[in-house]
């Protein structure tokens, strides 16, 4: 059912140096159903990644997104694949939102050939350039100037698209954000800086890291909008507004008030710097999936059972994807030497024992 349905956001937007978008958001039963399904899939995917990590099938760092799904889904609902997205290391769901597959996610997490970067990137380095997703960046804040560079190239190419550069409240205090924002504003770049404020930079609460945690105002001369990041419709409305704004006037900051249920990474139980009550309180009162569930029920779009079935379906989908990913082989040892350069110029590259392992780069 694609008929238009108008729903009020539960919280107002707060603007800095710009107008406020309307709280009435146009959607449709069909869209709300897809929001529910897509967010439930992301939630399930991240919970499955947690288990895979604990059974030692995923190595190294692993940062999960459960709780923050509305940011990704709301943003995707407002933009096209010609718009660019670049984000931090908490990137699994962003990749899925851009059209990546579950198998690519799990295979990459487990370092298999079928991964989105053939197992060479890992959890923090997912990419899907054909859908405008430029990674997955492990250096805190680096994606902000990089995103402004994408926006520069979009403006240079006059193609009428924008870039969303996502970062956390921890990165919001980085110097390179202000360097890049200054240049983006000087050049009127179509860059949307999205601060996903989950209130903790690793284990440091925002008020302990930022003299002013009003991140939407931190651009000073740059416009900003504070948004309930747990409300997928509010995120959609804000991103639509920001895209139009950026194409006309240049950069804008969106601060999306959100929450991560997991710790910062798998090595963080997430319980030393916040209370269990705080986490369960957010789950009960602000959960982005539950909010959509309530909307679907109250508007008689779906019955309880239907939604439960969808959750069962996505669970099965995730399990099947994991099974398929597990069947994918590890990357061939020859992949060690591929993609170092686009043009290797026939130069020799060495393995650990250069007498034993030496290849000519294509």
């Amino acid at each position, binding site marked *: 059912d694609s008929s238009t349905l108008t729903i009020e956001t539960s919280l107002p937007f707060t603007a800095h140096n710009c107008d406020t978008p309307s709280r009435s958001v146009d959607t449709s039963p069909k869209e709300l159903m897809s929001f529910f399904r897509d967010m439930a899939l992301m939630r399930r995917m991240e919970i499955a990644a947690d288990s895979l990590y604990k059974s030692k099938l995923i190595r190294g760092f692993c940062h999960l997104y459960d709780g923050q799904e509305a940011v990704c889904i709301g943003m995707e609902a407002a933009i096209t694949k010609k718009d*660019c997205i*670049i984000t931090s290391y908490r990137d699994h769901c962003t990749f899925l939102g851009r059209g990546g597959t579950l198998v690519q996610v799990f295979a990459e997490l487990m370092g298999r050939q079928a991964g*989105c*970067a*053939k197992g*060479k*990137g890992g959890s923090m*380095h997912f*990419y*899907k*350039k054909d859908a405008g997703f*430029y*990674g*997955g*960046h*492990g*250096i805190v804040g*680096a994606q*902000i*100037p*990089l*995103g*402004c*560079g*994408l*926006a*520069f*190239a*979009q403006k*240079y*190419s006059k193609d009428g698209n924008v870039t969303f550069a996502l970062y956390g409240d921890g990165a919001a205090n980085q*110097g*390179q954000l*202000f*360097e*890049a924002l*200054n*240049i*983006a504003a*000087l*050049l009127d770049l179509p860059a949307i800086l999205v601060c996903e404020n989950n209130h903790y930079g690793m284990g440091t609460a925002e008020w302990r890291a930022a003299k002013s945690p009003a991140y939407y105002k931190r651009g000073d001369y740059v416009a900003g909008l504070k948004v309930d990041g747990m409300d997928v419709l509010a995120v959609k409305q804000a991103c639509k507004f920001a895209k139009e704004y950026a194409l006309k006037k240049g950069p804008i900051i969106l601060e999306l008030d959100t929450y991560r249920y997991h710790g910062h990474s798998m090595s963080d139980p997430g319980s030393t710097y916040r209370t269990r009550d705080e986490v369960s309180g957010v789950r009960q009162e602000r959960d982005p999936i539950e909010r959509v569930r309530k909307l679907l029920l109250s508007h008689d779009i779906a019955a309880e059972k239907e939604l439960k079935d969808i959750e069962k379906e996505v669970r099965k989908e995730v399990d099947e994807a994991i099974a398929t990913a597990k069947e994918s082989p590890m990357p061939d040892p020859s992949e060690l030497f*591929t*993609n*170092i*350069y*686009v*043009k290797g*110029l026939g*130069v*020799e*590259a060495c393995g650990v024992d*250069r007498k034993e392992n030496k290849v000519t780069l294509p």
Partner: protein
Amino acid sequence: MTVREALNSALDEEMSADHKVFLMGEEVGEYQGAYKISKGLLEKYGPERVLDTPITEAGFTGIGVGAAYYGLRPVVEFMTFNFSMQVLSGQQSCFAIDHIINSAAKSNYMSAGQISVPIVFRGPNGAAAGVGAQHSQCYAAWYASCPGLKVLSPYSSEDARGLLKAAIRDPDPVVFLENELLYGESFPVSDEALDSSFCLPIGKAKIEREGKDVTITAFSKMVGYALKAAEILSKEGINAEVINLRSIRPLDRSTINASVRKTNRLVTVEEGFPQHGVGAEICTSVIEESFGYLDAPVERVAGADVPMPYAANLERLAVPQVEDIVRAAKRACYRSVPMAAAA
């Protein structure tokens, strides 16, 4: 043609040939370049393609890399300047090194070939004159140790033209290390090198002077010093072969080794710090591949193992001089040598 004119013409021709090429950096536009490398380009290509940036290298380097992700071909100039025009340098790249290494060099690999980064980072590098420790340092070894980057360092005007054009056309990130003290130097240039299609191969060294008694490797300004040393040596009956590396990464190991197999002796010359330097890598390559051909220990001539001092006499002691190269070459040839003046 001066090196400055060579670089300027290379930029001009590549910008004219490909709309995706643009120049950004401090003072590249209205100021016409702190060293006038970009003279006239703003007028010709406009502010959309010649961009003056604030003095915020991490920001504009990241922006340059992001633009390259999207498919543009940025040329990022590193530069700042002081009143005396004894300006800087690759030193600015320090602020930006995270983006050069982590955002540019590694992306093609991490993305399994999805995200290529056709970008050039260029600017003066190495010892300048009288600017003290923070503005006088060679970064060749730093960048050349990183897989994913290509590192070029021109000496002559022909090098500057051919290598810069090659760097801009290359699909990978290139660090292009110029030398402030060479910008005003004039070199004869062949007709072939003046053609707009002229390009030099990345990864190939040039034998500047053939010889049979000792091989001297050098890059950038030190090539000139090595050639002067070779002149002096020839008067004493030592016929030195001088290799202009041109490319620090990839390093032309085969040209170096072929030369050493002929001369059986090697002197490496660089302005950078000796420890883990370019000379150290060349020495290792020769030990690995041509050990049996060596008739003498390899000699390394490098910048002194100290931060660059300001005082003129101390500064002179901190960077290689022609007589240092002559002395090292004689030692490699087992000629008796006088003690160094300052030893």
